[in-house]
């Protein structure tokens, strides 16, 4: 059941220039696809459209040929952002944050290297890498079919980046998730993606 964007067009201002024009993109399950392009060319916007955060002005997003249902319940296409501290409620403990969408299980958390002690803390008490692991766990519910990683490890040091991606790729393979990886880091894309789509 592929994730398909067909003829997607989008612009931010009513009669401004088109950021995306009749853009096509397909990601299949079990596939790791890179999305590469200069700043401001619409990579994040395309990711947000696929994940249902934005409605395209033209075109459709379909999952297994059907339109993805409107925002109700758990969305099968999840997104992880560059700045985890802006993607969590600063007043919630990590336990509440991770369990917002599903009851994250021990094995998944262990694989991502999440320490039990973090769960009782609030975001300000964790480092960026620790927080990002929690954001990934939150996005990996059993109903997740596709994950869009928008500069997911750009703020992290190389060791943490390698740890997170190895765990992520293993989990994706086991569950045959489709991954769309948005990144400036060409070496990273070459290393983990089966194909790279130019923007």
């Amino acid at each position, binding site marked *: 059941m592929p994730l398909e964007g067909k003829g997607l067009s989008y612009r931010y201002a009513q009669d401004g220039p088109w950021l995306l024009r009749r853009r096509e993109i397909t990601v299949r399950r079990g596939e790791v696809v890179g999305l590469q392009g200069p700043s401001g060319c619409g990579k994040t916007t395309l990711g947000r459209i696929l994940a249902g955060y934005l409605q395209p002005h033209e075109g459709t997003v379909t999952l297994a040929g059907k339109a993805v249902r409107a925002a109700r319940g758990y969305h099968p296409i999840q997104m992880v952002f560059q700045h985890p501290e802006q993607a969590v409620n600063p007043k919630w403990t990590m336990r509440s944050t991770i369990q917002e969408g599903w009851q994250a299980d021990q094995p998944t958390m262990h694989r991502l290297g999440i320490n039990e002690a973090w769960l009782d803390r609030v975001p300000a008490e964790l*480092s960026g890498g620790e927080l990002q692991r929690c954001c990934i766990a939150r996005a990996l519910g059993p109903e997740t079919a596709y994950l869009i990683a928008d500069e997911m490890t750009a703020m*992290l040091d190389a060791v943490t980046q390698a740890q997170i991606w190895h765990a992520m790729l293993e989990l994706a393979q086991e569950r045959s998730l489709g991954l769309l990886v948005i990144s400036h880091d060409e070496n990273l894309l070459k290393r983990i993606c089966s194909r790279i789509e130019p923007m």
Partner: protein
Amino acid sequence: MSLLQVENLSISFARYAGWLRREIIMPVRQLDLALQAGEITALVGASGSGKSLLAHAILGILPANASLGGSILYKGEKLTAARQAKLRGKDIMLVPQSVTYLDPLMRSGAQVCLAARGGDPRKLQRAAFRRYRLDNEVEQMYPHQLSGGMARRIMAASAFVSGACMIIADEPTPGMQAEDAAETMKWFRELADQGHAVLLITHDLEAAVAGADRIAVMNAGMTVEWLPASHFSDKGERLQHPYSRALWNSLPANGFYVPQSDWRAVSSREGPGCPFASCCELAAAICREEQPGMREGERGWVRCHAS
């Protein structure tokens, strides 16, 4: 003589846990570093390893509950609060990470003029604008009208006209595409060539290796190794500290290896021994008993018993 010499610097914060229990946290414990005029030194380390605190300590802009140990010497003399107040913005200049550090109510030409020293500010500013390929109209623009790239040029132009001896750049390149990052690094190289000492604070080891002369690697609040950037090559055979090797070999271009040891699982307790003794594969008996000091080897400085 080094322009700036940091010896055994520690930075700790007092905070209240609950109502009455006062606790001390020490994000920087042992930081040693020296900057030379005409060189770019990169301070590289994990997020949360205390890199940015060094910049704040040098400029004297740490919050009030911070206390410092060790010493920072600038041109051979101790940096006191009074000296810092005199030097910052003139002798020592910070190139901040984002456009939010610009004054939102000031036209960009005026901001650059404000930083100019040693000549007619307007002339210096015009010259800097030409140098950084900024059109004359940009002078009249406010920060919100600038693109990200223009804002970065304005901040580089401010450093350029300041005549400062030392420039500190805090995470100048993350999230930039390769060409922009390379251009930014080129500016710092030009500043170094003019005789400035540049301290580049970054988590991006690849950018540091490509652009800097020397690299100091930091983990858990300590500089673990400090050596010429050219030693970061091949499989890291010329690196001496096991953490530096792990960091180098975990880059996507260099093998993407996940290290056996979890370098973040360091003991936070104050006690004898190397803080990495519990997780380092090279750890021997002495590592648990005695804390290693920074010592000079043939390829640079390293803080490790095993290497």
